[in-house]
């Protein structure tokens, strides 16, 4: 787990929480990270499309999903950011969605490479 430990310095992931959540099962951690890697880009693209198209219902649905995915992996700040997006979308505050999305994108920037490094460290 050396690589993973090293990367906590700049990490968005609360690694100790994440490890506790998977009961220190490195194979499971790898599996969850690869599910995230596979699904996250599509979800993010769909969210961007929904915000661009002022589709508040769809934006709420996807940001809810992203919030859950990020919270499961203990990416706490980004999960909060997705939660904010969901709240705004549900309230129909379409005008605020663009800024909230930009905030969210900033939070998740560099997340996938970070996940990669955890995966490399977590592989049994």
């Amino acid at each position: 787990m050396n690589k993973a430990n090293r990367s906590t310095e700049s990490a968005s992931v609360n690694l100790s929480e994440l490890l506790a959540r998977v009961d220190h099962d490195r194979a499971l951690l790898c599996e969850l990270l690869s599910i995230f890697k596979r699904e996250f880009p599509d979800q993010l693209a769909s969210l961007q499309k929904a915000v661009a198209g002022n589709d508040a219902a769809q934006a709420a649905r996807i940001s809810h999903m992203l919030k859950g995915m990020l919270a499961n992996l203990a990416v706490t700040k980004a999960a909060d950011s997705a939660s904010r997006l969901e709240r705004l979308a549900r309230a129909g505050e379409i005008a605020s969605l663009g800024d909230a999305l930009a905030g969210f994108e900033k939070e998740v920037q560099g997340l996938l490479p970070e996940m990669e490094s955890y995966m490399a460290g977590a592989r049994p």
Partner: protein
Amino acid sequence: MKILIADDDAQSRRLLEQTLERAGYEVTAVVDGRHAVESLSQPDAPRLALLDWMMPELDGPGVCRAIRKHREQSYVYMILLTSKESKEDIVEGLESGADDYLVKPFDAEELKARLRTGERILHLENRLVEAREHMRFKATHDPLTSLWNRGVIMDLMGRELVRSQREHGCTAVILGDLDHFKNVNDTHGHLVGDQVLREVARRLLLSVRSYDFVGRYGGEEFLTLLNNCPPASALVRAEEIRKAICARPIQTDAGPLGVTISLGVLLSSDWGHRPADELLREADAALYAAKTAGRNCVMQTKPEELRQRVPTPQPAGE
């Protein structure tokens, strides 16, 4: 123990699956509410369910409502998984029929503790259902022979007579009485008498079809109803019953005892609209005729216009 997980997020699903399998559960995972309802409605379905609140097709509360509609099925303990935290949401979830809720991301230990609560409730329900079934059995069956008791066999007779009339079918009513049973009790005592009655009941049940009814009508009297019985075969079937009783001695604490039965038979199709108790009196008269004819035989009764009491070709014993 079996458990169902319904979550549209693959990652949550996998995490739950792994956590629960490790805790010893047998996990079924589905991706939406519609599949959850399908899975929970199967026979032998899981009775514990973890349902994500927001799912495509049907959400978690929708699944709870659908499952609670089917009251006849075994209780399913349902926990909603939610990231919603407002009171209104929680109230809505619980009022949809959920038993509990858990806020995501879940803590594994809390999840397992809440599931153990669910298991306790299900265990309690099992015990209540068992007790209810036990009471129901006691209320409808004869305690010695486990045949239908007098009240139930009479109700069944009334119902079968109405049904066979409506369907223009025929129910054979057979009233049987063990021959010289008093001697068994007087000579060998009531415990041996009870052993004889239990074995007679067993032989009666073996000699009829699974959808016929056999009840203990009185001390050593048994009432058998053969449903949808073609009139031509009723006497043959009654003979089979008679032979099943006397075919071989009954093993008792007092040694093997030969036992015979006399039977009075009537066919509901011969009697038109008559109440059950009137037909029973007729069957009793036929039984009396069988006793008079030497016992261990079958006598049929018919209404006046159809010639009364036609003896079977072979009365008397083996």
